[in-house]
């Protein structure tokens, strides 16, 4: 276990370096964006003098490097600054939205992960049968449909035609949990469709990969029935790649859902980020990107730790 702790610490350290690099990258990308925040805030209707006045007020007249280190200094002490556009602190601007994003991601994950693993096991068991092929085509089709398109189709059938679910997922804090689940069902379902296919295919592949192992043959020669071979003998050894792909997809559920947020009008962090980019609101862009990057890094780390924990060789050292 000490080894795991050491690994986690080492990876966290590397993660911090990655975050630093990401922050530099984002800062200069935002710097390079044509147009500037003053122009973007004031919109089409601003005169050059107004723009200059606003630039002055926001401190944009200082050199970029200086502003970056100013920001970094603040960030290191836990102060991520205030939105240049609205003047709200970054924490306040992001806080609730990040919770919303997490909620939606969790909702989708809670449905998608078990379904995809169970389906993956089933298609591995029924490999090369009609069911397997149908599942294969169905998952490929769902992978290859643009997600906004999936969203629209779901809206058509589940909201417009049947009215089972609301077409827009606007939520408010005073809703009951059940109401919340009902209102956000369609975006969650869209995400489920998007990620399930990938995870299911990976589960199937990981399991089938193991079927040539001697211990699987041994189990067959012990008279173990096929479903038990898959579930008891193959699956426990297939966790590492499965966890990996699950982590990748969870990261996607948090970082890649801008389009779903737009389609279902869900107040998540993705929409905030796109808006902030449009406004060149650097502190918000930076904070969102760092949250995304940290999510990605942590989930990757979790996947590696998970792979270790499910590997008996590493879990039970000699």
């Amino acid at each position, binding site marked *: 276990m000490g080894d795991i702790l050491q690994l986690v610490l080492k990876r966290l350290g*590397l993660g911090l*370096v*990655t975050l630093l*690099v*990401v922050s530099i*990258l*984002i800062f200069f*990308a*935002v710097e*390079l*964006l*044509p147009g500037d925040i003053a122009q973007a805030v004031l919109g089409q209707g601003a005169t050059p003098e107004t723009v200059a006045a606003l630039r002055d007020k926001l401190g944009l007249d200082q050199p970029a490097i200086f502003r970056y280190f100013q920001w970094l200094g603040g960030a290191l002490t836990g102060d991520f600054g205030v939105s240049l556009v609205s003047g709200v602190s970054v924490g306040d601007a992001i806080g609730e939205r990040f919770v919303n994003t997490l909620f939606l991601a969790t909702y989708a994950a809670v449905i998608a992960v078990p379904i995809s693993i169970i389906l993956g096991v089933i298609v591995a068991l029924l*490999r*090369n049968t*009609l069911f397997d*092929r149908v599942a*294969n*085509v169905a998952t*490929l*089709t769902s*992978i*290859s*449909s*643009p*997600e*906004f*398109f999936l969203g*629209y*189709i779901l*809206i*058509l059938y589940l909201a*417009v*035609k049947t009215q089972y679910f609301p077409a827009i997922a606007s939520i408010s804090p005073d809703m009951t949990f059940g109401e919340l689940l009902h209102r956000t069902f369609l975006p969650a379902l869209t995400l489920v469709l998007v990620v399930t296919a990938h995870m299911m295919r990976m589960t199937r592949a990981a399991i*089938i*990969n193991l*079927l*040539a192992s001697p211990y699987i043959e041994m189990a067959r020669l012990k008279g173990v029935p096929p479903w038990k071979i898959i579930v008891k003998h193959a699956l426990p050894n297939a966790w590492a790649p499965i966890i990996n792909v699950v982590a990748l997809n969870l990261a996607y559920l948090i*970082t*890649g859902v*801008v*389009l779903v947020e*737009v389609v279902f009008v869900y107040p998540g962090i*993705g929409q905030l*980020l*796109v808006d902030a*980019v449009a406004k060149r609101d650097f502190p918000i862009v930076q904070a969102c*990107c760092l949250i*995304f*990057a940290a999510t*990605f*890094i942590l989930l*990757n780390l979790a996947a590696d730790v998970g792979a270790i924990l499910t590997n008996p060789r590493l879990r039970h050292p000699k």
Partner: protein
Amino acid sequence: MSTFVIAYYALLIGGSCLAAYFKKRELFLLIFSLTLVSFVMGIIGGVGALRFVTIAAGILALAAGTSYAFREFLIIIAPEGVAKELRTAPLTAAFGMFVIFTYAIAGIFAPVIAPFGEAEVISSAFAPADENMLLGADQLGRDMFSRIIYGARNSVGLALIATTLAFVMGAFAGLLAATKGGWFDQFMGRFADVIMSVPSLIFALLMLSIFGTNLAVIVVVVAVIYSPRVFRLTRAVAGNVVVMDYIEAAKLRGEGTWYLIRKEILPNSTAPLIAEFGLEFCFVFLLIAGLSFLGLGIQPPTADWGSMVRENATLISFGELTPLIPAAAIALLTVAVNFVVDWMLFRSSGLKEV
């Protein structure tokens, strides 16, 4: 009971009996279960449901027939070595190859096949299909069919170039990292982490806003976004290859890095890379479509399936099927590509299941 229904059941039951008589177990099971399902469907859905089954079965049979014929055709025209490989292709893979072949023909000969120009306005908006226009017109009165044909050239071409570039960059870096090891490997790994940890859509948004949205920039940006994934895969695959004794032998011979990569490692890493190519191709396609959704995609009036879906996507809420056509074109191609890739993967994995 209409004649259709009688003929329907007669055919199914006759088929079941024949299959049973000739001891074709699988065929019998398939046909007879279809018969049983039809009873239920017929009662619930009426003749319409049965007709649907018939049409679906007909399309399936047609697809299977086409695939079979196409495979035999390829076997005949292909040289000996390739023909041997082709014989192993399952019908799904043959179907995939047929679709890819069709798309390739459509793309290459687009100007010849398409009845109208890519941007040519020939009728009123959303005109229905007639003898001139196979699929009707789009929102500007341009021929949908012609645009789909041209879209094959543009969308597939762009995605293909971007994916290829991603593979060239990612694979080269991955091979180099696996071969060199040490700090270079570490550095490249971290670098890939950095790119991957920025969400792809945001990354694309930033880059395209900075560098403009011409085709070259789209290709490069998409390639940069996807190359870390290729890098990681290549790194892992090549990681398994570099521990082989023949690599050790070559190193001990004093061979240079470039030789190691080119001659020793690359030829042994291609199979999983090809498989990944299929999936990445889909993702690239989708990313480009997603970029169009944010207004950063291919330039008009160039026909592009992703943009065509997006432009007409809202129609779907009214039950109009127009946006489904380019979406179906995307889906069909990705499914086809992955059919072929599945087969290649199966061949290269050496996992033989009969």
